[in-house]
């Protein structure tokens, strides 16, 4: 979807150019256009090969190679595309296996950049260092509009994917009967611990990453990652609720995760024991609260019933003692019955567990 939007934008840029081959000046606008050009070419070729047409129209191809050769090493992708170029010329229009999209390339660079994070922090320098180790120019960082934000979001997405895989694997084992299903509290604790342990190699620079995630232009993405992760954890914990519990549970787990993360970054105990103890206590709190809520509700109901019973008994007695007060007593009793009934209905409506 995002690729489609980029392709559309690139298409607009192309039309502005009139499809003329670009000479290699290194201005930002030019490189943007070249980027867009490259992406449009990739998109066009992807759709071409999907529809199984023959060789792409020669003008495109010609201009593309001309554009590629005139592009400065700033892009650096020409070296990548020198090999997959063979797939462009493939008569049957199929993709070669070594064909790499821009997104895959970006993912490779960012994954490599994680190794340089302890040294350079969550910055563009880490990305540049990684680009160099991959044989690309350090100016490849121009590919990343969001700079360090891209790196952090990539890392978060990677961790979440890993967590989802682990949880799915565990779920599989339980389905196959090879291991026991955990209780909810224990499952949540293990899942959050697994996810937080992925931060350990980067724990010294993690406060920087957290602040990057809190930048206004990163907040939508970081919230999306967080909510997907929490949804995954609850799903594999067995939550299939379709009422307001869906929200209360996820809100509770989000709170637990965030506070435990904060505790972790300033924890200096061996193997973060204090963090896991904190996590344990928080989960116990939430479980306690749910139980207490149930108890309060049950107690409230019992108290109300008791009061109703007492009032009815008193009124009945009065009815027998003072026949002339019958009408009043009858009115009171009918009101009590009605309010009792309404109370039952209300409690039934508002029950949330």
């Amino acid at each position, binding site marked *: 979807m995002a690729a489609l939007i980029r392709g559309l934008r690139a298409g607009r840029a192309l039309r502005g150019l009139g499809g003329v081959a670009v000479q290699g000046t290194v201005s930002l606008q030019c490189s943007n256009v070249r980027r867009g050009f490259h992406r449009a070419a990739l998109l066009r070729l992807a759709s071409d090969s999907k529809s199984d047409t023959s060789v792409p129209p020669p003008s495109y191809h010609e201009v593309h190679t001309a554009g590629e050769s005139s592009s400065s090493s700033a892009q650096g992708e020409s070296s990548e595309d020198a090999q997959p170029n063979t797939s462009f010329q493939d008569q049957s229009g199929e993709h070669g296996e070594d064909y790499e999209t821009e997104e895959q390339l970006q993912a490779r660079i960012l994954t490599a950049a994680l190794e340089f994070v302890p040294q350079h922090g969550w910055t563009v320098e880490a990305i540049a260092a990684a680009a160099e180790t991959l044989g690309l120019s350090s100016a490849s960082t121009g590919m990343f509009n969001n700079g360090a934000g891209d790196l952090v979001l990539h890392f978060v997405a990677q961790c979440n994917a890993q967590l989802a895989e682990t949880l799915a694997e565990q779920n599989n084992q339980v389905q196959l009967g090879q291991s026991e299903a955990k209780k909810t509290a224990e499952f949540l604790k293990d899942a959050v611990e697994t996810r937080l342990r992925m931060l350990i190699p980067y724990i010294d620079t993690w406060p920087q990453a957290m602040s990057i995630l809190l930048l206004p232009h990163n907040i939508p993405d970081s919230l999306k990652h967080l909510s997907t992760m929490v949804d995954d954890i609850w*799903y594999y914990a067995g939550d299939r609720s*379709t*009422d*307001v519990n869906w*929200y209360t549970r996820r809100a509770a787990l989000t709170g637990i995760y965030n506070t435990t993360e904060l505790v972790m970054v300033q924890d200096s105990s061996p193997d973060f024991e204090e963090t896991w103890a904190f996590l344990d206590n928080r989960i116990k709190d939430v479980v306690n609260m749910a139980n207490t809520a149930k108890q309060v509700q049950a107690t409230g109901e019992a108290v109300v019933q008791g009061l109703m019973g007492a009032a009815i008994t008193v009124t009945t007695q009065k009815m027998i003692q003072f026949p002339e007060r019958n009408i009043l007593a009858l009115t009171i009793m009918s009101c009590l019955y009605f309010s009792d009934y309404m109370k039952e*209905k209300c409690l039934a409506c508002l029950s949330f567990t």
Partner: protein
Amino acid sequence: MLHRMMRVDHAGEYGANRIYAGQMAVLGRTQISPLIQEMWDQEKQHLRKFNEILAENRVRPTLLLPLWNIAGFALGAGSALLGKEGAMACTVAVEESISEHYNSQIRTLMEKDPEKYTELLQLIKEFRDDEMEHHDQLIIEILVFALPFYVLLTHDPSLLQVPGYQLMKAIIQVGCKAAIYISERL
């Protein structure tokens, strides 16, 4: 898009459930109660099915469920306090809105890709038929058993002639449209 559709359908069935519950709370001991109970049971079945679908597809339920809970019950109880004709008229208006909504969903799915969404299409068609059945049943109930005089006088078997019904129907339809719009997004 699919998630939105499932979310709003789930909210709709939940609301319909609460409307019938409100009506039964007031009219539970009258002559009309078996009919309302039967329709309520069908709605409960619909809701159960949608609960399953939401769980299967990991769809988020709408945040406003508590609101629809109270609003539905209030609408049901309020219309039932107008008598059994009031309750039936309210149900007729609601069922008409729901059927229209399901029809538009069916149209959307058919436009997109009938083969891919066959199961969902079949389900929505089935539910729409159920709702239309409720609607038709109740129209007959009202016109034939509750208000035969209007029909005899005007020779026009349409509910719109009954005073106050048009107003009620307009309010309910606007309410339903607003509820659908919000539930799709929130």
